Each structure stands twice: as structure tokens, then as C-alpha cells.
């Protein structure tokens, strides 16, 4: 229940009690008027006792005063027909004094008991204060402590409550002392807290409360405040009697939580930046590694060429040796050309990645026959497979980019499953064309498939040697730019005892879906 509705319930309770009491009072008055002298005071007599017993102190006192007032009034203004009965009058006065007296006695006794209990509790808590007075250093240390301090007795009643607690919870000391500590908690946890309290009392030791949970305190105004609470049991010996009280230090952690949230968001920002830098470093490292491979050939064949030229210039070179040197030079030059072209392609791919990252890759769409592209892609293989195509295999797309995709997929398959690659192009569907590329290679473990299209991913770290880990990433991005999908699955035609085998399905819509790359904040490149 929240604060406004519990306040409403309290008001309703008071109104109900007073409604009943005033009804009873009216009934008593009616009886007095009807029954006349003998009964004149008796109803008030009972009414006063009942009111003192059932009502809270303050309300009991008001009810009692009301009775006294009414009795006095009625005694002074007796209706005329009422025959005076001397003995009756004495009886009435005696009954009135008796009734009122008992009521006052009951009320004062209850007040006395409450005051005694509060004093007893307070004395339990503050032996120092009891011995040295409230101005003593120890008492002041506690009441002026920077944390809110609430002390409860073994039954869970608040017996001490310092200045910080007043400002944290909004209750004054007078309002809260002697009440159950659950008053300071949100409704929904009060019942549970009673159990926690019992558990603590069974094994009392100094500890933080509610580890791993966010604790909420409830202020007088109903607001919930996140707090940290540390508990410390204290044995207090009062009058030779041992009693366990519990000191709770309560700290408002709203400011701390705000700072923590701010720090967390800053940390997340830093981590993102760090991840970007790490990825860039990984990229540079892989790029350097990949460029070194063609560079090795360039350097080696250049040296070989230089050596050949040097030898050919010697005067004593035989015609047979000269011929061999020429052949060697020609071979070197061809290798240099191939490796330079490879480096150019490598640099192009790096630029493609950068373009994708900044959303600058544009497609130049034409009508592209995927079957023809597929035949070109496998054309360079040693054992070029027959491309099987059926249906209309034309889509709207960027021919160069799609050729790049297919060439990359074919190269990849050929590298890991040489001689086992085949390609189908399925143009039978109305809305899209699917290129299916399968091999009988080792396949890709199911748990790694989700990652192969991410940048720089290389299956099994050590196994791959070339390709920058960018090939599949680029293929995936280009297909996505076309509005298509690229998926991996097991080669269904493969016998399980021959190892995995992989199928790649590239599905492209016949008509343009998305045209240009959109800058992707998540994938912003730093290079």
C-alpha cells in the first residue's frame, strides 16, 4: 500500500471510531432523558471506562472530557418533570465520580506504561547517555553521526533515532520512537523484514544488510530512498539484565548511484572507444601480415632478377647459362606482376572495408545475370565445375561487386576444399535468385558460423593464412547492400563420415531493395 492510501485509511479509522462513540453517546443521552434520575449517570459511567480502554490516549482523553461536560450539563439542566430524589442525587454524584475517576485512572495508567516503556528502551540503548547525560561526548557522537543511526530493541521497536535519521526519513524523534522499525520500510517489504530481523537475531553479527540487493527506505512523505544499511548487534546490560539491541547505520545512496550510473556510461563509452582501437590495431596487424606475404615474393623475386641480370652481364657466361638466366628472369617478372596485382587487390579490399564503415560504398546497378557471373567465378579454378542454373537468373545489382562476392566465396571454398566445389544458380522463385555454393571440405563448426561474417574473423585463428579475414565480411556486406542474405549450412549431400562440407546460400532480390550503405555507428572504423 502506498502512502496516500494508508493516510486515507487512518482518517477513515478515526472517523469510524468517533462515529460509533458519538452514536453511543447520543444513545446514552436518550436513555438518560427517558429513564430519568437513577439511570442519569450510569451510561456515562460505562461510556467513560470503555472510551478510556479502547481509544488511543489522546482520543480517550477527549471522549472522557466530552462525557464529563455532558454529565455536568445534564445535572445542571434537569428536565422539569424530573422528580428530585435526594438519595438518588447522592447516588448519581457518587456514580459519576466513580465512573469518571475509573476512566481517568485507566488513561493515566496507560500513559504511564507507555512512557515507562519508552524510557526503558531509551535506557537500553544509551547507557552512556544515561550515565553521562545527553550532552556527553558519546551520546553526541551517536546523535550527530554523519550517517542516519536507528537503534531497535530485540523486539524491533525503535529506541534511538539520530538527527541524520530525522532528515533522511522525515519523521521526528518523537514521532518514531517506540514504533516498529518496519515503519521506515516500504509496505511491500515489511512482512519479509520481520523474518529477516528474526534471522539476524538468531545469528547476530556485524554485517551489511541486503547484500546484492538495492535496499529502499520509505520516508514519511511516502518517497522511497535507496540506502545502504550496515547492522551491528550490541549487548546492553541494564540493571544486570542482558538485552540485545541492533544498531543500523543508514546512508542515503541516491547521489552515489547517480555518480555510479554516470561512471558506468563513461566506462561504456571508453570501452567502446577501446574496442574500436583494439579492432583497428588488429586490422593493422593483420593487414601488415597479409601485405608481408606478397612482399616476400616481391622482394625475393626482385633479388633473384637482380642476381640473374648480374650473372648475365658476366663476360664468360655460356649461351646455355644465358638461356637459363633469361628463363629465370621471365619467371621472376611474371611472379612480380602477379604479386603486385595481388597487393593492389588487397589494398582495394582494405579500402572497401573503410568505405563500408563510413557508408561511402555505392552500388552501380544494372541487370546482372548471376549464372554468367557464377561461371566467371569458377572459370579460374583448375577443375572448373559445371555451373547448373535454372529459371530466370537475372537480378538488379552491381555486377562488379557481385562478381567480387562470388569470386571470394569460390576462392575460399577452393582453398579449404580444393577440387570439391560446385555451384548452382536457382532462378525459379519469383522475387529472388539464389546462388548455392557447396564443397566437401572440413566445413565450419556451427558455433563459429555466426562470427565468420564479422571483420577480421579467421576460423581457428591459426589455420587461415590469407584473406585478411575480410573476404566473407565484405561478401556479407555487399549482399546486404543489395538487400539480400547470405547464410551457411551443412552440405546435406555429404556423408557424415567424410567430414563436414559447407553450403553457402546467397539470396538476392530481383529488384532493388536498398541502394546505398548507411553509415553504421556500431561499426565505425577508426582507420
Amino acid at each position: 500500500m502506498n502512502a496516500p492510501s494508508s493516510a486515507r485509511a487512518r482518517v477513515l479509522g478515526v472517523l469510524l471510531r468517533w462515529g460509533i462513540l458519538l452514536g453511543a453517546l447520543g444513545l446514552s443521552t436518550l436513555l438518560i432523558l427517558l429513564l430519568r434520575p437513577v439511570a442519569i449517570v450510569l451510561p456515562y459511567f460505562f461510556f467513560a471506562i470503555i472510551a478510556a480502554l479502547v481509544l488511543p490516549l489522546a482520543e480517550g482523553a477527549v471522549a472522557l472530557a466530552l462525557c464529563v461536560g455532558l454529565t455536568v450539563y445534564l445535572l445542571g439542566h434537569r428536565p422539569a418533570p424530573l422528580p428530585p430524589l435526594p438519595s438518588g442525587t447522592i447516588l448519581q454524584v457518587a456514580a459519576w465520580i466513580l465512573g469518571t475517576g475509573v476512566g481517568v485512572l485507566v488513561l493515566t495508567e496507560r500513559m504511564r506504561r507507555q512512557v515507562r516503556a519508552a524510557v526503558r528502551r531509551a535506557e537500553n540503548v544509551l547507557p552512556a547517555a544515561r550515565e553521562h547525560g545527553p550532552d556527553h561526548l558519546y551520546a553526541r557522537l551517536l546523535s550527530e553521526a554523519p550517517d542516519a543511526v536507528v537503534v531497535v530493541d530485540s523486539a524491533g521497536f525503535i529506541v534511538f533515532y539520530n538527527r541524520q535519521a530525522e532528515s533522511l526519513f522525515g519523521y521526528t524523534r518523537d514521532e518514531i520512537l517506540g514504533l516498529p522499525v518496519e515503519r521506515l520500510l516500504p509496505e511491500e517489504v515489511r512482512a519479509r523484514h520481520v523474518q529477516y530481523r528474526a534471522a539476524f537475531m538468531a545469528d547476530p553479527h556485524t554485517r551489511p544488510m541486503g547484500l546484492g540487493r538495492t535496499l529502499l527506505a520509505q520516508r514519511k512523505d511516502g518517497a522511497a530512498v535507496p540506502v545502504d544499511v550496515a547492522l551491528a548487534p550490541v549487548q546492553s546490560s541494564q540493571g544486570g539484565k542482558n538485552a540485545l539491541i541492533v544498531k543500523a547505520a543508514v546512508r542515503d545512496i541516491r547521489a552515489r548511484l547517480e555518480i555510479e550510473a554516470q561512471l558506468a556510461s563513461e566506462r561504456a563509452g571508453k570501452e567502446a572507444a577501446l574496442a574500436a582501437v583494439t579492432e583497428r590495431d588488429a586490422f593493422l596487424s593483420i593487414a601488415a601480415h597479409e601485405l608481408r606475404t606478397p612482399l616476400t615474393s616481391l622482394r625475393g623475386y626482385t633479388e633473384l632478377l637482380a642476381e640473374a641480370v648480374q650473372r648475365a652481364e658476366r663476360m664468360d657466361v655460356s649461351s646455355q647459362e644465358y638461356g637459363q638466366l633469361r628463363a629465370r628472369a621471365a619467371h621472376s617478372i611474371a611472379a612480380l606482376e602477379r604479386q603486385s596485382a595481388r597487393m593492389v587487390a588487397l589494398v582495394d579490399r582494405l579500402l572497401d572495408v573503410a568505405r563500408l564503415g563510413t557508408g561511402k560504398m555505392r552500388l552501380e546497378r544494372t541487370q546482372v545475370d548471376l549464372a554468367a557471373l557464377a561461371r566467371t567465378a569458377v572459370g579460374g579454378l583448375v577443375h572448373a565445375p559445371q555451373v547448373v542454373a535454372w529459371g530466370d537468373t537475372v537480378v538488379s545489382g552491381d555486377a562488379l561487386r557481385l562478381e567480387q562476392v562470388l569470386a571470394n566465396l569460390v576462392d575460399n571454398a577452393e582453398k579449404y576444399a580444393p577440387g570439391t566445389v560446385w555451384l548452382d544458380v536457382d532462378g525459379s522463385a519469383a522475387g529472388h535468385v539464389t546462388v548455392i555454393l557447396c564443397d566437401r571440405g572440413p566445413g565450419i563448426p556451427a558455433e563459429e558460423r555466426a562470427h565468420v561474417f564479422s571483420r577480421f574473423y579467421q576460423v581457428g585463428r591459426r589455420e587461415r593464412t590469407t584473406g585478411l579475414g575480410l573476404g566473407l565480411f565484405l561478401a556479407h556486406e555487399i549482399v546486404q547492400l543489395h538487400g539480400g542474405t547470405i547464410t551457411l549450412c551443412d552440405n546435406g549431400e555429404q556423408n557424415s563420415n567424410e567430414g563436414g562440407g559447407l553450403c553457402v546460400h546467397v539470396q538476392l532480390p530481383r529488384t532493388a531493395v536498398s541502394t546505398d550503405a548507411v553509415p553504421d555507428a556500431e561499426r565505425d572504423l577508426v582507420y
Partner: protein
Amino acid sequence: MSTAVRRILVVDDELEIRELLTMVLTEEGYLVHSAVHGEEALRLVLAPNGADLILLDMRMPVMDGWTFASHYQHDVPEPHAPIIVVTAAQDARRWADEIGAAGFLSKPFSLHDVRAAVHRFLDSVPDPRPDPDSDSDPDPEPDADFAPSAA
């Protein structure tokens, strides 16, 4: 050359690098075989006249250098050939230590480095096998002209 022809196994998935190393080392008078990946290399070292020196790339498809080295050291009856790790990675030295290699060459290497490394290992390690099996080591004819002693 006074001893039998020494055999070198070049393991690298790059065709051009295999060709380059084969050409250069054959010129130096060695008998050079090459393999595209660890699995093929393992078949070659298990053959009767295996290798006296292995130039090993590390990152290869099918079987990488680590797996090859482990098989070579544990499954081959007499793994006497020192391994030289040849890699473009920055971790060349660490990887060489990892697999217990005798040395490493970082790509891009110079031909001089390759020759020096090979000479160092093959000229200081005596051939553990008896000489007479040299009938299986045909002297490569075309390279005789390029042998250093031919000048």
C-alpha cells in the same frame, strides 16, 4: 660436395614462395621438396628419405605449423631435422619457441637470410644417416651450373 645431398622440405601454402625457396635452395645444391600444408608435409617426412631441414610456415589451411610440428616430434620415428619457422606474423620468435624450432625467418626475408640460415643449420649438422643410400638422391642436373663451386 663431400657428403650426400641434403634434403630440405619447404612447407608453405603460397605457391610463389614455395617456388622461390625451391629455386634458390636448389641452386645452392640442396634437394628441395615442398608441401602446401602440414598434412602433405607429414607424408613427405614419413617417406624413407625424409628431410634434413624443414622450412615451416605456420598459418596454413588443412594442417597448421603447430600441428605439423607436434606430429613430427611425436609420431615420426627419428625427427632429426631442425625446423626453421618462416612466417609473416610478428610472433615469429615466440611461435618458434612454442614448437621447439631451431630458428625462424621473418617474412619478407632476403635471399641472403635464407641462404645463411640454411647453411648454418645444414653445414653444422652432420648427416645422421649412412652415405650409401645416395642412389635415391639424384643430383639435380640443371642446377649444377648455378652451384657456388661452379664459378
